[in-house]
């Protein structure tokens, strides 16, 4: 067995690709493999592969029918990017075996019901689309598909149920039309016309309050950020005007038309959409991200227009490929680049647009941010002659439009860009951006460059950043991340507390105990006290200052040194931060000492929360305090706040999980008792039950207390936002100046960001928020943010 790390030898990841020679032994595995692989690169044509596979499966039907049914239903649900390949396969099987076709349709309907009940709305959508394409393959009769669509559309007439429920059913119909619109209109034009009219009037009357919160850019030019249903409807309208011509979708069934049109069709059973239930979680609305149009791809194939149905299909398929393969970046990149029909479209532009569309998606990207960075790097590796240029072009465009970009998206943009650059020696044409040097530092462009350089420095070091930018960029270069020691030398000897710092550092060097340190600290004068009759018990900020400055200075060498210091003197720190004022002050001291090194501030605060030296509310209060006003728009501050909220959320989830586990254990024990009937055993388990019940009670209390802390944290944050924004708005109104300053845009979008990043948790506290904070008396600019948030699940 080799001792060397295997991954040292190859290019990192997917080592199994070389060794994938072992054939699946089981016939069932083989069937799955055959079915999954059809449509991939092959020496034979797709048609002959489909023909061959249909023959194999037909022969296996007597013995493996259920397995084949299950596999086909699963690929219909999970591989939507290969929809037409599999619908053709089902068509061929139906032509050879009518009963199988019927059973397949039944299984699909069962699966559809299941996915809708389980809140798997994306998968349900793919199933509906698959069923509609089966009309093209002569498996399902067109009129019965139209009838299903009619039932879908009747949902918009319902009295109860949120808008997002109707949205999904409308979307399911509209998004199937690129595949089957032509066929359905040819067979049932009157009914289809009625369906489209009903959709149109629904779209006209539905609420669109949520749209501003989901737009990446606030400007309409150069590309309007359209609401997803509006965009799709416009695309369908255009397709209808073109007499349902659709030239992009790969349709293998056309080659088999002579065989398929001989097949008998099945009727879909009448399908009633399941009623709305409280547990239903419908997909959130989206805004369509567009950054390119046909003018951007200089040569080669033309990019389909924003309202062309081709654009919709391409984007859908690319999204589906990412959804299927996001875990394996090499496969994902390869699949994206081998998109069928790639020669007729500027594929690189589509890919880059779809990837950034996901990365910037609000409220959250579908996958973790870093996946997109790594995927783009893989794509650059596979297309070194073309993709980096498209990426550079995209970056330039996004830089040009920073003024109207949502702050949350700017965060993601700068995170992506700095990480990306760190993989390419930070090579960039910074000179092209020297226009930002003439602007105020609080404007979006110079701010962006400054934050990118700061993030880049975290991945390298200060001198590197100085070296990579032109000399005239010096104002944007981050500070050298060095410690600022207040009690440095004799020049600070006049500072109160200076003598004690000497005593403290000696004590630390001599490994004094926590108690000894506390004793030394008693000598620190208290600037808050007039006389010393109340010794030691009232809050003494200077004590914290003296101790922590000295400690952190001694431990400044690295994160590990600082963490070690915090751990060693945990007792001292806990006693110094007993009060809320103490907690606030310790944060101030950390900031003062490490203000040049935001990353260090961030990790120290993280540690202090985790070791309960400070609590989450203290961090929130500190961030909103006047002390931090000058840094309020800096990226690192929001990193800290969001990290703090996340820690709080994870803490609550953890205890809730512990409670659930304990409850389950009790359940199990009870059911075991019921079955056993053994008296001796019963007595023992009674004792165990008692202990468990105690534990559950304790955990219940813990959960309640944690939830209360969590609610309080959000209240603090929202209250502070409201105060700051109201103050600003009032000041501007009385002063007669425009309120929409860069600071205001940043602040209101940060408020939005809190809602967006933690929307699931905040949902629990809606009633409190509405009653206490987001009342009708609030300035409408602030209230609008709250209303937009509510509209996301209405």
């Amino acid at each position: 067995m080799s001792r060397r790390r295997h991954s040292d030898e190859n290019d990192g990841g997917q080592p199994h690709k070389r060794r994938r020679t072992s054939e699946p032994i089981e016939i069932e595995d083989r069937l799955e493999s055959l079915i999954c692989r059809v449509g991939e690169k092959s020496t034979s044509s797709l048609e002959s592969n489909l023909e061959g596979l249909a023959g194999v499966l037909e022969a296996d039907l007597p013995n493996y029918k259920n397995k084949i049914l299950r596999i086909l239903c699963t690929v219909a649900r999970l591989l939507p990017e290969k929809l037409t390949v599999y619908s053709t396969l089902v068509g061929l099987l139906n032509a050879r075996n009518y009963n199988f076709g019927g059973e397949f349709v039944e299984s699909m309907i069962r699966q559809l019901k299941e996915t809708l009940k389980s809140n798997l709305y994306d998968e349900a959508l793919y199933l509906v689309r698959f069923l509609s394409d089966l009309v093209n393959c002569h498996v399902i009769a067109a009129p019965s598909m139209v009838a299903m669509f009619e039932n879908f559309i009747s949902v918009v007439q319902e009295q109860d149920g949120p808008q997002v429920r109707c949205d999904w059913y409308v979307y399911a119909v509209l998004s199937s039309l690129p595949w089957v619109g032509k066929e359905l209109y040819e067979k049932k034009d009157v009914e289809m016309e009625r369906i489209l009219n009903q959709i149109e009037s629904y779209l006209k009357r539905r609420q669109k309050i949520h749209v501003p919160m989901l737009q990446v850019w606030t400007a309409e030019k150069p590309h309007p950020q359209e609401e997803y249903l509006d965009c799709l409807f416009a695309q369908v309208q255009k397709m209808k005007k073109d007499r349902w011509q659709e030239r992009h979708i790969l349709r293998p069934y056309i080659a088999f038309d002579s065989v398929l049109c001989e097949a008998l069709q099945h009727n879909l059973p009448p399908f009633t959409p399941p009623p709305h239930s409280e547990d239903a979680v419908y997909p959130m609305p989206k805004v369509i991200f567009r950054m390119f149009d046909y003018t951007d791809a200089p040569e080669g194939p033309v990019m389909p227009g924003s309202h062309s149905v081709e654009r919709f299909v391409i984007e859908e398929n690319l999204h589906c490929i990412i959804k299927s393969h996001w875990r394996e970046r090499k496969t994902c990149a390869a699949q994206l680049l081998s998109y069928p029909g790639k020669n007729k479209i500027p594929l690189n532009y589509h890919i880059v647009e779809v990837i950034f569309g996901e990365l910037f998606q609000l409220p959250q990207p579908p996958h973790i941010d870093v996946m997109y960075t790594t995927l783009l790097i893989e794509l650059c590796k596979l297309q070194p002659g073309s993709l980096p240029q498209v990426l550079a072009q995209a970056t330039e465009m996004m830089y040009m439009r920073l003024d109207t970009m949502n702050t949350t998206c700017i965060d993601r943009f700068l995170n992506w860009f700095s990480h990306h650059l760190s993989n390419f020696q930070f090579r960039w044409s910074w000179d092209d951006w020297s226009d930002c040097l003439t602007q105020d530092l609080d404007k979006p462009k110079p701010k962006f460059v400054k934050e990118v350089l700061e993030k880049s420095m975290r991945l390298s070091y200060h001198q590197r950043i100085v070296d990579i930018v032109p000399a005239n960029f010096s104002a944007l270069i981050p500070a050298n991340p060095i410690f600022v020691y207040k009690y440095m030398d004799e020049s600070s000897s006049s500072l109160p507390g200076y003598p004690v710092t000497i005593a403290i550092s000696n004590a630390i060097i001599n490994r004094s105990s926590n108690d000894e340190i506390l004793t030394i600290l008693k000598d620190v004068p208290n600037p808050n006290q007039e006389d010393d009759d109340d010794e030691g018990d009232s809050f003494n900020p200077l004590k914290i200052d003296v101790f922590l400055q000295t400690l952190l200075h001694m431990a400044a060498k690295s994160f590990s040194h600082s963490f070690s210091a915090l751990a060693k003197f945990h007792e001292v720190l806990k006693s110094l931060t007993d009060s809320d004022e103490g907690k606030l002050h310790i944060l101030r001291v950390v900031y003062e000492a490490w203000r040049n090194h935001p990353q260090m501030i961030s990790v120290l605060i993280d540690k202090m929360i985790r070791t309960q030296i400070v609590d989450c509310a203290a961090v929130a209060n500190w961030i909103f305090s006047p002390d931090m006003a000058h840094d309020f728009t800096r990226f690192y501050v929001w990193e800290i706040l969001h990290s703090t909220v996340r820690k709080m959320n994870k803490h609550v989830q953890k205890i809730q999980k512990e409670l659930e586990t304990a409850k389950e254990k009790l359940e199990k024990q009870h059911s075991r008792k019921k079955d056993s009937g053994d008296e001796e055993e019963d007595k023992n388990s009674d004792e165990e039950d008692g202990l468990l019940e105690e534990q559950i009670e304790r955990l219940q209390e813990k959960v309640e207390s944690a939830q209360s802390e969590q609610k309080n944290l959000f209240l603090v944050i929202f209250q502070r936002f409201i105060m700051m924004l109201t103050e600003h708005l009032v000041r501007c109104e009385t002063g007669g100046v425009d309120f929409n300053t860069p600071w205001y845009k940043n602040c209101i979008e940060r408020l939005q960001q809190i809602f967006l990043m933690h929307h699931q948790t905040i949902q629990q506290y809606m009633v409190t928020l509405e009653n206490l904070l987001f009342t009708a008396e609030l300035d409408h600019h602030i209230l609008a943010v709250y209303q937009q948030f509510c509209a996301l699940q209405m």
Partner: protein
Amino acid sequence: MSILNALRSDSYVDISQYRDQHFKGNRYEQEKLLKLSCSLYVGNLSFYTTEEQVYELFSKSGDVKRIVMGLDKVKKTACGFCFVEYYTRADSEHAMRFVNGTRLDDRIIRTDWDAGFKEGRQYGRGKSGGQVRDEYRQDYDPARGGYGKIIKK
């Protein structure tokens, strides 16, 4: 509802061939730990790569619990590897998928599952005090002390 084997593939997360020869326990026990571990070994670092840089990069896949920088056993200076520990398995899997094989400090770094940090594992196991790979390599790598020890001798 069933899942396809093809879509279950998550090869970046699989354990490698490497097994720690100093591990206290048998192969099976080590593999069990590797499959549940939240700890990663990170290799091919420059000797100058700092804990801060490692923190920044690895924080992109989740909250980092702890970093232990690898040290030359004799000189007690950085010798080009470290351990990164996450709070959750999910976060460490993201690191295997998206940080492994990318650059830190201009070098392609490698991550691999680790059975868990134990005191003593922060030291290189090469005869000269650094990592074994630096004993025998023939190339010149300025970020890893120049030539391998075998050439220097």
